[in-house]
């Protein structure tokens, strides 16, 4: 074996000083209920890496939505509240206004954030509430088994658009980040993905930047993550990540939509 040729065995490598990746400590040591390959898990993981790296595990309060990530609080080892469907931004407003020195974030699906919760999201953004919204856009209602979401793209088949979404009658796919970016209360809007290694790295950086901005009190930050739902898209995880790349990202291009003006 290769190892032998170089005279190195696994035990030589598997040593604390050689550790280059481990599960973040802020992610609880339990199984996540998400389907195999689901982007929710990936985002949980990288966000907890950020929390760990910034050393803010005791200074952050999260708001879980109603959606597949309703159980986020079972995995993130931080104080959390579970909000009614769509109301995470209102709940986060209540928290942040009471605890302005703490980090606050919401974690929401596209149905939660942009359908039923559109108004709470819009107005929190417009008030410039100084918290972070992590917006998982998987173009579908995951938890309720695959109905059309505001972000479902043109022609996409879901259980409530069984013949493909027809924007003329069902509404157009909504780019919520683009919608609110012009509001003066909004500091940072970016769209990321977790379908490739590189995208995961970038998404993590975006989450970290958003928390830095929050620390500086710059206002509302939205990190949208174009994600997958292999179960309801009826694809394998690998296929689903390709669909993200080839179909979703062209419609939801990645990158920063708004960045704060540099303060001097």
């Amino acid at each position, binding site marked *: 074996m290769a190892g032998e040729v170089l005279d190195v065995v696994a035990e030589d490598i598997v040593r604390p000083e050689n550790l280059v990746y481990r599960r973040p400590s802020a992610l609880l040591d339990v199984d996540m209920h998400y389907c195999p390959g689901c982007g929710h898990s990936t985002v949980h993981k990288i966000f907890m890496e950020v929390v760990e790296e910034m050393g803010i595990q*005791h200074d952050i309060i999260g708001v879980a939505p109603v959606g597949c990530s309703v159980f986020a609080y079972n995995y993130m080892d931080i104080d*959390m*509240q579970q909000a*009614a469907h769509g109301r995470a931004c*209102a709940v986060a407003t209540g928290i942040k206004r*009471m605890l302005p020195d703490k980090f606050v974030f919401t974690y929401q699906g596209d149905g939660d954030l942009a359908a039923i919760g559109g108004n709470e999201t819009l*107005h929190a953004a417009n008030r410039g509430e100084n918290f972070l919204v992590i917006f998982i856009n998987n173009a579908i209602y995951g938890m309720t088994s695959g109905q059309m979401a505001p972000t479902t793209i043109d022609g996409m088949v879901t259980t409530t658009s069984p013949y493909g979404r027809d924007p003329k009658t069902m509404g157009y796919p909504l780019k919520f980040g683009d919608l609110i970016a012009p509001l003066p209360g909004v500091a940072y809007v970016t769209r990321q993905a977790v379908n490739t290694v590189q995208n995961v790295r970038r998404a993590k950086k975006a989450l970290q930047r958003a928390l830095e901005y929050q620390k500086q009190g710059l206002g509302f930050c939205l990190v949208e993550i174009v994600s997958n739902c292999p179960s309801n898209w009826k694809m394998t995880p690998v296929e689903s990540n390709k669909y993200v790349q080839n179909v979703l990202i062209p419609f939801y291009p990645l990158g920063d939509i708004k960045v704060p003006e540099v303060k001097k």
Partner: protein
Amino acid sequence: MGEVKLMKGNEALAEAAIRAGVDAYFGYPITPQSEVIEYLSREATKRTGMLVLQAESEVAAINMIYGAAGCGKKAMTTSSSPGISLMQEGLSYIASAELPCLLANINRGGPGLGTIQPAQGDYFQTTKGGGHGDYHLLVLAPYNVQEMADFVKLGFDLAFKYRNPVMILADGALGQMMEKVELPPQLPRENKEYPWATTGKPKNGERRIITSLHIQPEKMEEINLRLQRKYKQMEAEEVRYQTKNLEDAEYVFTAFGLVSRIALKAMDIGRQKGYKIGWIRPITLYPFPKKIYAEIAPKVKGILDIEMNAGQMVEDVMLSVQGKTRVEFYGRMGGVVPTPDEILENFEKMFIKGE
């Protein structure tokens, strides 16, 4: 004696909130209670640093309360009938997650957009749970401006004692009218830490979760059993009511809130006419003062329940009385307030003429 002022009920409530050291008010304007947010916008922040935030809607307001209450803060809102209807999902969540907070419904005439005049049509919604699932608000029914003020601190005390939402149910007139009120002393905003409150995971302790989701029915049933035990405890410890003239009463007038005062006047007129009328006013609508009705029932010829609705509290009276005496109802609806004469007249029609 504390400071005495002539104040609107809504203003007295607002002033009392500042003095009770409330941390946050989230609300949305609606007649006949907009004076609360207006008064607080003028007075609160500069005096105690209390947060006053006009939410984009009642739905947002109640969920902001959820967030703030989840941090162990004293948070409150006020609204009127349609606005309270919009809060029902949020209230069910708050009750289920066992968060303490205070609400007031300055009840107007319904259903629908209705009128902005005083009414009591939201009794069922308030006491039986207008939201989904088995939960109860602890409900206080003031009958004058003084109680509009007094029930703020009382409400928060009870809310935190039980970790349960408390609702002040008052009709529009109680919000709009002015009376003499003795204001409570200014208390500081206490920065208490509660072990259940999410303020950042403790350095040496478990993280805190505020949730009402328990996907396993057995677990959810446990939550429900805990809630039910709490309600039982409230029934044992928190029932409040007021009576008059029960000693020799042959009849009882009963009503809550403002109407109880009209009934009181009707009782006085009736007594002058020689009818031995007594009077019961429930102060807590939930828990309902069942016992006093059960006790008096076998001793009287009948109970007349008067409400500004189509007959709602009367069901609780009947449930308390269990057929042990006659229970009749007289009500006005849609914002119409009954007069004492009218009450007495109907009493005579129901109980005297027919005898």
